[in-house]
């Protein structure tokens, strides 16, 4: 086991920042702590690092109980959102810092620093100071500095949060490749679900200081266990069952579902799980009007209004849209390819594939 936290709790005054959180991260995995701001993700990371202490609960690092261990003995690498490079030191001195603390012989330090400079492709910048580097370069140096003493676990707090989107994308895939080479157990905090999907082996979804769900990205996407997870992992149409049942039976084909009746349940449909045609097909479909058609590069977003007045969003490829010849204002038919059905009772979800 790489990292394990058990029943972690942390209060700030009356506010429960971390509320009975437990999870385990297998060795060598790259895992994302995903949640909105205020979900307690950074606090959990800082507790694991020892920079913050929990009110109760345990932290276990590579099988060793670390709850009471001081920061400097935990053998972790930590990367901050704003790099936190030592401004009075060159790139080389920054990376060497942890090795010097370990009092390694000079030649060995030099060798290891060279190795890391090569890894982050900044050998030519070794004698620059942090202010002379770009944001992406600084974050790579911060990463190299954290990795230099060969930490047992690597912790990253919104590592790409301060970078512009293009650099962020580059650095993300670079981090993924790096992790495939280095294989250090890594936990990174992010509020960006796309980032979590792109980089991580597993995702821990957090909400209000609690773990909502943990699992591989695709599994979370396809089998969310709660309203929060469903909404947080990408856009989704939420249709009240009551509204669906109220659809005019003459015009609309009823859903082929055994819906339990108007009880406040919700049907969740991803925008790409809606099918649009100009003619009614064999399959049951609702008639709708295209209120707005937005081109998003390779994708097209349709804002539909169902006859009964419910708005839904549909996403399809540009080619499909062109093939169908859709335009704003068109009357169309839409059918569901896949949906999730959530009752008001928390945690209960049924998957339907039509």
């Amino acid at each position, binding site marked *: 086991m790489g990292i394990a936290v058990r029943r972690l709790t942390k209060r700030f005054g009356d506010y429960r920042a971390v509320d009975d959180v437990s999870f385990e991260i297998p060795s060598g995995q790259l895992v994302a702590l995903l949640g909105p701001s205020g979900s307690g993700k950074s606090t959990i990371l800082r507790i694991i690092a020892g920079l913050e202490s929990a009110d109760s609960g345990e932290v276990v690092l590579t099988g060793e109980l670390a709850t009471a261990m001081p920061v400097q003995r935990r053998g972790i*690498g*930590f990367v901050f959102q704003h790099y936190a490079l030592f401004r009075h030191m060159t790139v080389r001195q920054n990376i060497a810092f942890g090795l010097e603390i370990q009092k390694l012989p000079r030649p060995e330090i030099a060798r290891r620093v060279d190795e890391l400079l090569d890894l982050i492709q900044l050998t030519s910048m070794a004698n620059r100071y942090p202010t002379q580097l770009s944001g992406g370069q600084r974050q790579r140096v911060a990463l190299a500095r954290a990795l230099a003493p060969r930490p047992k676990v690597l912790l990253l707090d919104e590592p790409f949060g301060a970078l512009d989107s293009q650099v962020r994308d580059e650095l993300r895939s670079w981090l993924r490749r790096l992790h495939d080479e280095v294989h250090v157990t890594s936990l990174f905090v992010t509020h960006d679900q796309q980032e979590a999907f792109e980089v991580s082996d597993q995702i821990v979804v957090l909400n209000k200081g609690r773990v909502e769900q943990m699992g591989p990205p695709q599994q979370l996407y396809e089998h969310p266990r709660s309203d929060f997870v469903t909404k947080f992992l990408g856009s989704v149409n939420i249709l009240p069952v009551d509204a669906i049942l109220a659809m005019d039976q003459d015009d609309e084909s009823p859903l082929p579902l055994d819906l339990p009746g108007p009880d406040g349940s919700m049907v969740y449909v991803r925008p790409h799980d809606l099918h649009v045609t100009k003619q009614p097909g064999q399959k049951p479909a609702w008639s709708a009007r295209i209120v707005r058609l937005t081109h998003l590069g390779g994708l097209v977003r349709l804002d539909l209004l169902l006859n009964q007045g419910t708005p839904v969003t549909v996403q399809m490829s540009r080619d499909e849209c062109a093939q169908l010849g859709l335009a704003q204002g068109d009357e169309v038919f839409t059918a569901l390819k896949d949906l999730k059905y959530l009752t008001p009772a928390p945690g209960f979800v049924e998957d339907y594939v039509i």
Partner: protein
Amino acid sequence: MKWALIGFVQLWFAILILAPAIALLRAAVEGGLGSFVRAVSAPEAVAAFRLTFGVTAIATVVNTVFGVAIAVVLVRHRFPGKAIVDGLVDLPFAVSPIIAGLMLVVLYGPGSPIGRRLAEWGVGVVYELPGLVLATTFVTLPFVVREVVPVLREFGVDQEEVARTLGAGRWTTFVRVTLPSIRWGLAYGVMLTISRSLGEFGALMVVSGNIIGRTQTATLYIHDEIESFEPRGAYAAGLALAAVSFILMIGMERVRARVEAAEHGD
């Protein structure tokens, strides 16, 4: 408009600072360089300067160490009475140095209980070296604190936390990360402390007893020379004292400019 403002500032600067400085410089070397050297190497002058430098050295070391400690506590920690401490740090600025000297005389003087007790042990404070050091330290206490606090606040804790995660203990982190990051604020505070210590007069006037060769500092010596209608000695000593502060200040600025160019240049 812009040039008028710049011209005004330069004129103002010249009238207020440059003219008096030049006047002193001229007066001091009027009798030739030889008489200047003779004036500053008079035995009383040498003794006075030696005393001033000694007191300044002690006061500066003490205020540097404790000033940084106070700044760290004020910026990083919360404790009951913090606002009071924060305000009291400025007290030496707020009251006249004469009053500061008076406080020490009242507390440690021969007539006070503490003074009597200390005298029994053979320790004299007022009219002795400890009094001079105490008075100078008191008067210059706020400089390091006030220069370091904003720098430390701006510095934050990220870099210190990173150092801790890399295995550094608290002391190593302070020496290798915090101290180098606050160095210019600290250096500036130290410079001001030195300059002010060299130039302190009022508090020393009250505390020292002005015993020639024993508790007469450079400023007290200058004062006596003026009083004794021998202004040449006063001019020379005054110039020498001002020059030491000025050279230290310029020297520090130049070192800083050079180091910063290395770290931030392209």
